[in-house]
């Protein structure tokens, strides 16, 4: 964080600084920068191939940016391996749902607590007293989240058999189980019908307010983004096209051109 921001006293929770990603000769992201403030819902929009998911994968350390930096509470996350991202409070869902298909809903969400718990194989094998206490605590927390997302009735069902919409909620539950500070949602409305999208928007806002999280929302569904986001960043061809309030971004001529094509085409 810069001196100026320190002086202002509101350093961003997450800062994306001039991040570029190059695959072979293709520039997937080109010098993208933006800040996320605590408690905000930030919408990341853009046409297919704009680089939204690439950016997401940089945040969860699946991709290494070619240049630039990503700071979480002022510290770079780029020195951390992918499995040490959850513990600093970055949780995510995946575009096409990446659950553990053979595990029950309960176990999927239990895996979500992995970063917040500890154990070793010997204590686990012997089921020592402290392991049992930890499991009791994990179960309490997992059941609270399942109740919160109305998943209690499918708790023991294997996830591969559940409808897509329910699987998406299970994924959200799994992300919440790690107590993230920032929740990265990759196209949560994909595959949902109109009414479900409305309910989802409500749910995301509730999660932000009641569970005190900051949300980064990658979404195609403009209605959803515009209705719940406080701040919107628009990407196209790996560059930041526009940034501002939903109304500002919606009115931006470059954004309109990117989505609808220009008049002279």
């Amino acid at each position: 964080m810069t001196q100026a921001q320190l002086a202002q006293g509101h350093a961003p929770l997450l800062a994306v600084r001039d991040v570029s990603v190059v695959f072979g000769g293709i520039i997937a992201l080109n010098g993208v920068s933006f800040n996320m403030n605590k408690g905000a819902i930030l919408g990341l929009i853009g046409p297919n191939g704009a680089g939204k998911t690439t950016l997401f994968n940089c945040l969860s350390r699946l991709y290494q940016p070619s240049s630039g930096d990503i700071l979480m509470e002022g510290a770079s996350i780029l020195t951390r391996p992918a499995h040490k991202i959850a513990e600093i409070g970055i949780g995510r869902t995946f575009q096409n749902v990446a659950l553990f298909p053979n595990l029950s809903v309960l176990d999927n969400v239990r895996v979500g607590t992995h970063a917040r718990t500890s154990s070793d194989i010997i204590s686990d094998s012997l089921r020592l007293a402290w392991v049992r206490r930890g499991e009791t605590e994990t179960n309490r927390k997992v059941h609270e989240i399942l109740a919160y997302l109305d998943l209690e009735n499918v708790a023991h069902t294997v996830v591969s058999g559940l409808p897509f919409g329910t699987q998406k909620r299970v994924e959200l539950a799994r992300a919440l189980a790690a107590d993230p500070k920032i929740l990265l949602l990759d196209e949560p409305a994909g595959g949902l019908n109109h009414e479900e999208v409305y309910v989802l928007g409500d749910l995301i806002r509730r999660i932000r307010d009641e569970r005190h999280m900051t949300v980064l929302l990658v979404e195609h569904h403009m209605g959803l983004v515009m209705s719940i986001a406080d701040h919107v960043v628009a990407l196209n061809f790996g560059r930041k096209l526009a940034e501002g309030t939903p109304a500002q971004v919606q009115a931006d001529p470059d954004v309109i051109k990117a989505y609808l094509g220009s008049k002279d085409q």
Partner: protein
Amino acid sequence: MSAAEEVVTEAPAIEAVPKRAMTLGLGTSLVVLAALAIAPLFVKNFIIFQMTMLLIYALAVLALNILTGGSGQFSLGQSAFYAVGAYTSAILMEHFGMNYALTLPIAGVICFAFGFVFGQPALRLSGVYLALATFALAVAMPQLLKLGFFEHWTGGVQGLVVTKPDAPFGLPMSQDMWLYYFTLVIAIGIYIASINLLRSRSGRAFMAIRDNEIAASAMGVDVALYKTLAFGVSAGITGVAGGLGAIAVQFVAPDGYTITLAISLFLGMVVGGVGWLPGSIVGSAFIIFVPNIAEGISKGLSGAVFGVLLFLVIFLVPHGARQVAMVAQQMLGKLKKN
């Protein structure tokens, strides 16, 4: 759009069972346990010896099941871990005069370390490639054991003769029967510990990796660590089984631990049901008794008969003993309703 996304949506290579179905109910467990405890009182020593081997191979199959059914990694190299366990016990007993029971935890720890270290290069491989790498290990092991360099300890091609222990405290039972109960206690202990492990945070990490590595990593699971741990645990249990095997057979020799043993254990796992721990003993029974049955049907064509029997099992019950158990459970459920 990207490589990572493709991996995310890829279906798991192994069909697995949810954790709840990984074990037997308490009632069934007690019945099986009672049968195992009482049976040796009514049979001859040779049968007791065979039952001991049944438990020992069941442990080795269980170990492979934790690796493949639990963490989703293939291994055709279990015979190498079994051999290391067997030789560790044999050398400690015969060269150092150590008590047989004390050699087993040492065999387990050495094999755990061996498996953990072997798991490191295996991290870069998956599926059939991992199977090939472990296959190489199994092929190399008998020759390594024959090396002149180790001959003073291993006895080279001749192997080592191991003394069979007597029943302690002057208990009135034969050596075979004592060893059977000794093995049974160890097998039950390892079985319970394995179930605890798979039901714990570590076990969930194994299964998360099996189902989706990228998602597991996003949840904070150290994929490399847990994959190598799974190899270590599997090798450690196989090593204990190997040590027990050496004591029961009273002999270790390089050619007792060839790739054939590794393939048998793999077969046992499939027949018992991948990922279903109680199936291990059924798989073990298959690899011990079915070759004998085949020989009984036709001495000259025993291999072919075995092949036909194996084919029938795979064709009729592709999910092995687990499938049989589930069908039986459903039928019982229907009977209760009527």
